[in-house]
């Protein structure tokens, strides 16, 4: 029975690669990523230009700057690295559901059953190339190694000329000529082995197992087993995260909105690309702000429908930040996307044209931002007779019929334009019948319709009694009135207060 086949995806110079993913404009510069503060900061990784100038890991920043005056230095950024690692995992998950997160730019993928998707003489090589291409598309220059054990795959992924495939059962032979440092032994074991004159993995593997164990202990025994190509560690698949993260720590705190949105847009674009690659969209967008000098703020925007339109999401963020400013300089941020399946619809060939669900979701989100959530939706009547009442529900139109029909001839019904809120009226009445009406104006600047005139015909009263068992009962006597100057109105007298109101115009 064949053993498992594992691919290791390795992102070399991970802190640097993660940083350059967030700031791709720096790729062609001499850039180093440092760890530590001030002049004590030490170089962790550098780009080719920096390396060619002589900058090496471990150099202090002043040493590095002396070697390369135009050096661009960036501190290690946990947010960038977390987002980079997540992006790497998502690339792997596009190929297989069994993916292990080994951290620091390393991911293991279970290749079992994938070979049938790659119909070539060497399907594993083809798989490796596909993994590299997919990662490259996500802005991650990775190396891939494929073997039967995690260790051999990891060592293979560290070699140039990627992808490197180690045939099954040949792990020990593959590892033998490689230097011992590839196994990353502990410092004391490494020095002992050096004193013994052991230089390559093969030299180490040839030593007797029992004697290695008696001299180097448990750690040495395990290292010896790995040198012989034996790696019993199974692949531990991860649970997919419920939320997508993307963010970064800023080089200096931002105090105005525009620069923040400029940086936020790039992060949103990366977030939406990741959502798209997973076939998901954003149902809820969160923003965590790290404030200067300390403190943080969390906010979230709910979307009417899942979307991954960057412009819309950015507009919503802008409106939210304008409405509730953070109140302190922003030193870093994390965007969180709660994913959901985007809406899908089957378009009919002969029926009415349906709206694109993705476009509709985007439009609804923008309308929410423009008008507010209580002013966009599908109207529904409310149980009762008070005409000013209504409810709004989420707009999710059903699919169109398969065949287009012609509308039936209309019945020519007269509709009422509801006045919300009702207009207060002064009414002169004779025998309880209105004969003249006039709008009560409390504020001259208020832009409300005005109703004024002698009543030509009045029809009523029509009683409305509703909700007498509630705290807001309605008792109204309705009249339909036509004014001498024109216009048909629906007015009522509140039975509780005796006040008059107009709540509709027949139009």
């Amino acid at each position, binding site marked *: 029975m064949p053993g498992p086949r594992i691919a290791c995806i390795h992102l070399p110079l991970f802190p640097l690669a993660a940083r350059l993913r967030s700031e791709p404009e720096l790729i062609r510069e001499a850039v180093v990523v440092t760890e530590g503060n001030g002049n004590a900061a030490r170089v962790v990784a550098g780009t080719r230009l920096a390396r060619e100038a002589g900058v090496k890991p471990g150099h202090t920043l002043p040493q590095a700057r002396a070697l390369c005056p135009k050096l661009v230095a960036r501190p290690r950024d946990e947010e960038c690295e977390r987002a980079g690692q997540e992006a790497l995992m998502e690339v792997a998950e596009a190929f297989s559901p069994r993916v292990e997160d080994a951290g620091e730019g390393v991911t293991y993928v279970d290749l079992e059953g994938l070979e049938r998707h790659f119909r070539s003489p060497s399907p594993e090589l083809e798989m490796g190339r596909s993994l590299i291409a997919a990662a490259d598309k996500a802005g991650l220059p990775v190396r891939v190694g494929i073997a039967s054990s995690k260790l051999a795959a990891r060592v293979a992924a560290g070699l140039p000329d990627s992808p490197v495939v180690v045939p099954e059962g040949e792990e020990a032979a593959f590892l033998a000529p490689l230097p011992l440092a590839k196994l990353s032994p502990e410092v004391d074991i490494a020095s002992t082995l050096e004193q013994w004159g052991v230089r390559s993995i093969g030299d180490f593997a040839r030593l007797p197992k029992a004697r290695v164990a008696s001299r180097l202990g448990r750690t040495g025994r395990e290292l010896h087993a790995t040198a012989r190509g034996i790696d019993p560690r199974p692949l531990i698949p991860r649970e997919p995260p419920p939320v997508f993260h993307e963010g970064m720590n800023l080089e200096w705190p931002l105090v105005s909105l525009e620069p923040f949105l400029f940086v936020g847009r790039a992060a949103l674009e990366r977030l939406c690309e990741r959502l798209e690659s997973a076939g998901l969209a954003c149902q809820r967008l969160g923003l965590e702000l790290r404030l200067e000098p300390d403190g943080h703020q969390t906010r979230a925007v709910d979307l009417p429908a899942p979307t991954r339109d960057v412009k819309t999401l950015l507009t919503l963020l802008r409106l939210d930040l304008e409405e509730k400013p953070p109140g302190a300089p922003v030193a870093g941020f994390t965007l969180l996307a709660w994913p959901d399946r985007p809406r899908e619809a089957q378009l009919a060939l002969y029926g009415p044209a349906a709206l694109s669900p993705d476009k509709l979701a985007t439009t609804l989100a923008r309308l929410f931002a423009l008008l507010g959530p209580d002013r966009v939706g599908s109207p529904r009547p409310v149980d009762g007779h008070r005409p000013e009442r209504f409810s709004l529900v989420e707009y999710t*139109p059903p699919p169109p019929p398969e065949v287009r029909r012609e509308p039936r001839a209309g019945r020519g019904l007269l509709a009422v334009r509801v006045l919300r809120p009702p207009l207060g009226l002064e009414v002169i009445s004779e025998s309880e019948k209105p004969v003249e009406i006039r709008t009560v104006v409390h504020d001259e600047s208020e832009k409300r319709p005005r109703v004024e005139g002698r009543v030509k015909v009045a029809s009523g009263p*029509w009683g409305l009694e509703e909700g007498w068992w509630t705290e807001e009962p309605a008792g109204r006597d309705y009249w339909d009135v036509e004014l001498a100057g024109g216009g048909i109105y629906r007015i009522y007298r509140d039975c509780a207060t005796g006040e008059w109101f107009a709540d509709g115009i027949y139009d």
Partner: protein
Amino acid sequence: MAVNLQRRTLEDSPLEEPGLQSPALLRLRSALPQGFQRHIRSARELDRDLREAQETEATFRTAVPALDRLLEGGLPRGQLVELVGSRTSGRFSTVLAALAAATSVGEVAALVDLGDGLDPAAAEALGADLRRLLWLRPHNLKQALAAAEMVLASGFPLVALDLGTPPVRGGRGVEAAWLRLARAARAHNAALLVSTPYRVSGTAAGVVLKAERARAAWQGESLPLLSGASSHLQLEKQRGRLPGQTEELKLTLGEVPVPSSVPRVKKREEPVEWVEDWEPLRAAGGIRY
């Protein structure tokens, strides 16, 4: 644009002249029985059928006979139609009827309701499928224009923008905004109906209709009942047509009990005495519970 080819049957659509048909197509058709020959179409014939179908769908029927007659079929797609009328001119009824006609046959439609005057129960009584109706309630004209442009761009085939009654919040708006709106309607081949108390869209409007103030129709002398209203729609502007054509717009309250949502129950003048048996009263229609 979705094209309804089913409405035209293949039998209605003529074939090309035999001289224009390719020899292979002629041979294929001659090998088939008479009834099946028309089921084989060349690409050129299909292209012609599609174009003809598109031409017949250049209008959006509103199911308001007066409006459909005046506009020779319905609201023209890709144009801004401005309907001007004062209070009680039948303007709002026309807008709701157009929305009801569209949604009742499965189209989606949007109402940008600056006047905030929609009664969902009344719209439902008019036949609107509220599930397909997107209701937007902007605060001012600027928001209303932006919202209308957004829904047009998202592909809504019918958008109605009702500015309510004067004073309109936001005045007349900027002419450039109306031109943008008309261009959005043209770009997405949508019917855009703007209902307004006075002319607002200037040169952006492809069609301008004016609704006169309606006269109320009352039934009965001693206890008059509002039974409807009648108005006139006049064509004031349409490219390629002479203005001045008029159609009568008749609107009734009909049998629908709730255009106004108010039950048509005559208020009792005298206090109701307690009765053991409520059935007679319920049967008389006076009690709803």
